[in-house]
């Protein structure tokens, strides 16, 4: 009994201390991790940049998250993709899969480059980052569908999508496609690299899914006026 009472008298500190809260006072400014901004000398700043710098010296700044780096190789789209692929907070495994995918894509393209005849060599893209971005662009839907209730029934109504929503849908479809439709023995990075290369050349299941969504939206054109925003 004495042990539990002394335990209650101790000042309690949580085991994990939050450094960055997601809800900040709007007074706080965003951190700017890119180094180039700070290397510009005083004379070459535009008036807006000068204002921004003065503001930064006065106002408090939010803490930067762990995934944001000042590295030249930092890619926000890729980081988002890694976060979406992550399961149970295991970023090491997700990042590992993505790096293996990029390496695999580069190897396949370089081998294709070596085997191609002279005329075709210039067309083969060997940069895995360029392929990734282009493939994601090819998978983004232009128009989406949402369920709107009118007169007791639910209709699938075509709506415009924001940029973030389009990017999210492209990534989500890519990841679910690779998780569901792969052979038991194929590894994730292998399947992902196949799908990304197919999407780059506008083939494959993800691009097909985007086209089906577009067709559905086109066929439901009549309900477009159910949207009131």
């Amino acid at each position: 009994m004495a042990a539990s009472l002394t335990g209650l008298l101790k000042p309690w500190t949580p085991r994990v201390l939050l450094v960055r809260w997601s809800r900040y006072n709007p007074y706080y400014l965003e951190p700017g991790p890119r180094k180039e901004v700070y290397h510009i000398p005083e004379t070459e700043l535009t008036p807006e940049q000068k204002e921004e710098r003065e503001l930064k010296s006065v106002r408090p700044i939010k803490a930067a998250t762990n995934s944001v780096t000042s590295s030249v190789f930092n890619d926000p789209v890729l980081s988002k993709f890694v976060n979406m692929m992550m399961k149970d907070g295991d970023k090491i495994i997700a990042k590992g899969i993505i790096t293996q995918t990029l390496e695999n894509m580069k190897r396949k393209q370089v081998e294709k480059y070596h085997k191609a005849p002279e005329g075709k060599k210039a067309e083969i893209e060997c940069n895995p980052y360029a392929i990734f971005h282009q493939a994601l662009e090819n998978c983004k839907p232009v128009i989406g569908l949402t369920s709107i209730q009118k007169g007791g029934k639910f209709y699938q109504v075509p709506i415009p999508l924001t940029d973030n929503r389009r990017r999210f849908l492209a990534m989500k479809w890519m990841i679910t496609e690779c998780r569901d439709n792969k052979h038991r023995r194929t590894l994730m990075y292998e399947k992902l690299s196949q799908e990304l290369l197919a999407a780059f050349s506008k083939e494959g299941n993800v691009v097909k899914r985007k086209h089906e969504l577009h067709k559905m939206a086109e066929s439901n054109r009549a309900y477009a006026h159910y949207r009131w925003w």
Partner: protein
Amino acid sequence: AVLRRTSQVRPLHGSGCGQQQEAIGMETRPETFSIFRTQENDPACQSEQHLGQYYTVPPSHFHTVFPHGLPPRYQQQVKTFNEGCVMVRQPALELISHLKRADYSKPTLRYLLYGVKGSGKTMSLCHTVHYCSTQGWLVLHIPDAHLWVKNCKELLPSSYHASRFDQPIQASNWLRNFRTTNEHFLSKIKLRQRYVWTKRESTEEGRPLGELVDMGVSRVKSSSDVVGAVLKELRLQAGGTEGGFRLAVAVDGVNGLWGRTTLKKEDKSPVAPEELTLVHNLRKMINNDWCGGAVIATLSQTGSLYAPSSAYLPQELLGEEGFDSMDPFVPVPVSLYSEKEFESCYLYYLDHIHFHHWLQHPHSQTEEGKKELIFLSNRNPSVLERLCAFL
């Protein structure tokens, strides 16, 4: 002192690193060749001039000299680039100069390559093996001694010795690769003793070694004993004056021979390394009681069993027993890339004449990116290779 020649150096793409330091006395290269490559593809003629430069292993030799023994990531790299380029580094050159000047009538010298993980020990060993095979030596290359002390599916009790165990699969694989490496020796070396395998099979005295090896590959059950016989014959005949050849024993991961195994007998008691025929015979080979060759060994923590991951020194990895058996040996430390070697490696990956840029990320070709690569990899060869693979 080192000369800095700016007028004769052709400006290189994207990299802004105009500080290429070349040794005094080097002739101007024709402009089509690059700073980091050398045309000297024969390891015997390479010298300090060529330190930090890549030489290409001729494709015709590649599969005969290295059927096994190259690190797996390097094999992938060779397949992607369609060429096998090895960097000329200080430890390998040192080893080759020792081998050139050693006295082969005295008992064998043992050389031990040691260094931190990923510093290039296996690649230096392969460079030395290439030198030995171009000089016409008989090369006994064991790709990884750890493969013999772990993950063995079939462990047969040995027919020759009651308490020992045989590993048929590993032994026959090794014999097959040995046959590919040393084709031309197999018909020249004759056996000096009669070997009896079963009641009906035996190999007579005076038969060529090739027959013994073929028998070992086809009769998988007695392949471990065949390996023992081959090693014994080579040991006896290496220093011989009539038709004498020099024998190079290259063992990767030699610390696996002394230590513990993960194999278990049928009553679940652990198997000690001495109880395996392959390990027993290989230990006899590493002893310096024969002459006419050299033993080049590498320590390896990567495949080792029950060794902490920060251990890289010989004393820690070999243990007491191993150190006493290897003592005396010539230690050859393998360090991480120096600045010049890092430059050379970076330019090799950036090279676009021989193969499309391996470093594809636009930022990796700038100064900033290069500084970041140095920081992330700490000039460790294998870490740099893995970084450049996805960048």
